[in-house]
């Protein structure tokens, strides 16, 4: 996947190199600027079975900072934030591949290097008895539970890096 571009970044970024499950890697720039979750909205995306984005709604476009064209046909890890532990996504994939619903608190990376916090639910899309893809719906999180999740993620990251 293409590296992030410094031209898109707002503020003073840290730099990371992320490696994804498919072996590809990406240079990302990360700032401490939070984009507040818009009240009353749901951020919706759908992927194929491999996690390639097939649909996004307007709130998704607004919050991620990418255009629809930049998102569709890209792997969903385009939003992967270096503060998120790998194990969280492994749990997501294990759960939905088993045909079940996954819930979790997620920190996502914006095109401009900022981040946004969500409570996400991912479900398999079953048509005529077969999984054809996945849908994720995010909403504004409970701040208490979000804070607990971020603390846990920080510990998990340390363990993953150890």
């Amino acid at each position, binding site marked *: 996947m293409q590296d992030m571009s410094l031209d898109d970044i707002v503020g003073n970024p840290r730099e990371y190199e992320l490696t994804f499950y498919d072996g590809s890697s990406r240079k990302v720039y990360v700032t401490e600027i939070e984009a507040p*979750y*818009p*009240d*009353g*909205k*749901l951020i*919706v995306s*759908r992927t194929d079975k491999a996690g390639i984005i097939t649909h996004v*709604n307007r*709130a998704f476009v607004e919050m991620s900072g990418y255009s629809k064209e930049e998102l569709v046909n890209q792997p969903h890890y385009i939003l992967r934030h270096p503060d998120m532990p790998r194990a969280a996504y492994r749990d997501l994939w294990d759960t939905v591949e088993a045909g079940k*619903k996954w819930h979790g608190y997620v920190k996502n990376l914006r095109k401009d290097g900022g981040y946004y916090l969500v*409570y996400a*639910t*991912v*479900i398999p*899309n079953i*048509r005529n008895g077969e999984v054809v893809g996945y*849908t*994720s*719906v995010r*909403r*504004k*999180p*409970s*701040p*208490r*539970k979000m804070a607990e999740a971020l603390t846990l993620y920080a510990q998990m990251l340390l363990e993953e890096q150890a």
Partner: protein
Amino acid sequence: MSYLMTISPDFAPELIAGWYIFNTWLQKQLGEGIHLELFNDFESQREAIRNNQIDIIYANPFDASMLIREKGFTALVRPVGKQDEAVIAVNAARSVEQVEDLRPGIRIASTDDPDVHMMGMIMLEPADLNVENTERSVVDSYIIVAKQLIRNEADVGFFLKEAFDNLSNFTREQLKPLVESEISIIHHSLLIGPRLAAQQDRIRELLLHMTADPKGAGVLESLGFQGWEHIDEEDVEFMIDLMDTLV
């Protein structure tokens, strides 16, 4: 053969006459007997659905899910431009400006509309409020939700946005909306059951052409609809998936 039609119990009471007019129009067009039965609450309607009594239904998105996935119903059309959105409001005199100002222990007034209540509860989550630390009173109409807020018998009220917008100015001025959903994907739809499946294309065509026919246009007007719009299977499946992520 005679069929049974019903509508989601969250219909606006002033539209009852409109639904009877629609029912009469549909019977004439189809040349079939269709009886319109109105249920007072969701539970009694669901009982009729479980007993396979219903053939045509204007359904709440919650029930659409059960009707399609468990009862073999097909969604034909939805009203143009009508979405189910929710509003959370408080008494205008309260010093509460946003959901985050609300505290545990609040009393919620809502109706038994399942989708509006669900959206309302989701919009309270950013204040760390949930079923465990709130109290709920279920009332019969949005007018009563408004009254409970005005009399301080409830702290927050959940409204269908359309119902909130249709409150009298006098009532609305005594209320303060805190947050409004902007989901755009959740809507009521008209579904038919297995006994009418063979007539699916014909019924859909009739409904889609109502605007072009003077009689049909009048019927739509009495329902407060601009027209019906086609929904295909994937549209409905997507809505049901989305509802599934929210429950």
